[in-house]
């Protein structure tokens, strides 16, 4: 392999510099969005503005998901094209694993809790 093909190779791929296309406006937009998406859940919980706790819980979880996406795009510069799509692939795989681990643990342990006999009933059964 001679130096010409090496140079051609370096031109083709642009390894490594896919992360450097960050801009001031991108960071600021991400920051402002994050501040808003953080402030609203804190305000909702601290003021108790929504009538039911369950609705508040669902709303602040939705805000968290949106803010995570905002961070991914504006701070971590995630895009389907970065690293020829392999970053996105790893991310999707991780999200699948996290969802299985979290929902599975909560589901199984919750059922286990409700199927177990409480201690005080157990002592009364002798």
């Amino acid at each position, binding site marked *: *392999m001679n130096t010409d*093909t*090496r140079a051609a*190779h*370096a031109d083709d*791929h642009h*390894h*490594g510099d*896919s*992360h*450097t296309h*960050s*801009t*001031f406006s991108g*960071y*600021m937009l*991400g*920051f402002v969005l*994050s*501040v808003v998406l*953080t402030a609203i*859940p*804190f305000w909702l*919980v*601290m003021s108790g503005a929504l009538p039911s*706790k369950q609705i*508040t*819980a669902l709303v*602040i*979880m939705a*805000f*968290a998901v949106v*803010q*995570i996406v905002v*961070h*991914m795009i504006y*701070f*971590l510069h995630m895009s389907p094209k970065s*690293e020829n799509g*392999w*970053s996105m692939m*790893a*991310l999707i*795989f*991780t999200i699948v*694993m*996290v969802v299985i*681990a*979290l929902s599975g*643990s*909560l589901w199984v*342990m919750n059922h286990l809790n409700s199927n177990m006999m409480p201690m005080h009933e157990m002592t009364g059964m002798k």
Partner: protein
Amino acid sequence: MTVAVNPSTTGEPVFYLADEHPHPEGYSTSLGFWIYLMSDCLIFAMLFAAFGVLGANYAAGPAPKDLFELPLVAVNTSMLLLSSITYGFAMLTMQQNKIAQTQMWLAITGLFGLAFIGIELSEFAHMIHEGATPQRSAFLSAFFTLVGTHGLHVSCGLIWLVTLMVQVGKFGLIEANRRRLMCLSMFWHFLDVVWIGVFTFVYLLGVLR
């Protein structure tokens, strides 16, 4: 991709891939570091799952409502968010090759990170002083493990930050240092992403319960 045929002495052809062209140094670092972050994400997922399962087992001890002060958590959250944006500014000034400004933004990032750790440690000290130690209940064990692991990550990030400031001071913004700063950028922003989960699921939902 080409397959080269190398006739060996026995006459049988030996096949091998001849695409081992040289890569520039560190060309795969960002993908490799991303995969590390994803594996770190799994650690946090397990700790979140443990907290989700054990978070309501107070063992007649203090509940989140008695322990957490949301204004303090809000201040802590803003410290981490501000450190994220100042690290972003450090990356922007790095792109413009301004060493002094990059160092300044890195230092400001470090101070915000230090403030975050300081507030978190004082919160922990206050809780432990009130008897809410990790041994008190399953909820507190899960809480200290999850939030403590995040705090440990931030502390490691701070050590890394200081190391890189020394590196940049010594060698300037050379290619290797740019790559390292890029990795720390991903690490730092990733910790902010994890903190979104912590303040939502541990603090806000805890107080709501």
